[in-house]
């Protein structure tokens, strides 16, 4: 399962894309966030951290599979 990274999340993880082994068996957005915050504690210290599933903000109960486009969205700051 791949997760695209942007902004400060690239600095926290030192990567542009995270590869998560299928053996982690992550089923929904909530599990993905919990896994990533545990692996990279810096993510948990951000003022917000959203997950996008197929280019839409997703609640914690949204199911995920390896065919979805997943991304971590740190606090936005356009404009």
């Amino acid at each position, binding site marked *: 399962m791949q997760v*695209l990274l*942007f*902004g*400060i999340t690239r*600095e926290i993880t030192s990567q542009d894309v995270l590869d998560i082994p299928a053996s982690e068996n992550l089923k929904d957005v909530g599990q993905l966030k919990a896994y990533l915050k545990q692996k990279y504690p810096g993510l948990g210290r951000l*003022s917000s951290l959203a997950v*996008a599933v197929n*280019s*839409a*903000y997703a609640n914690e109960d949204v199911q995920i599979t390896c065919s979805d*486009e997943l*991304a971590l*969205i*740190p*606090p*936005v*700051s*356009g*404009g």
Partner: protein
Amino acid sequence: MERKKKNVFIQGAIPPEFIAESIAKHQSKHSIGAHNIFLGQIRADNKEGKVVSAIEYTTYQGMADQKLYEIREEAFEKFDLSCMHIYHSLGRVGVGEICFFVFVSSPHRKGVYQATEHIVNRIKAEVPIFGKEIFEDQTHQWKVNS
């Protein structure tokens, strides 16, 4: 009517001439009676003694285009608009330069004020654009919209 996804992103600062040309292009549209424009400019914020010299913007473009499309469609439904143009910089934009340009046109003035504020607020809150504030000493910090 389904509108196409428009190209919003411009590399670097938005030149004042580009804004003037955008206005000129609407002079042939004679049903328009009111334009309203919002321009975002890079501010030399002072953060604990360090002064911002530029902001470097990046985006998650696939999602940003989708969000901007939704925001445009919703604004056209909600307000009586003839035209709407949104531009945002990517890459480095120095203090005093323009990074964000929202241009709304309507037959009458009433809707354009509300529409502009609505569109600007939604973009600042929802569109995945990330600004890295570069200080004069070349250190940086990631901006968070309030």
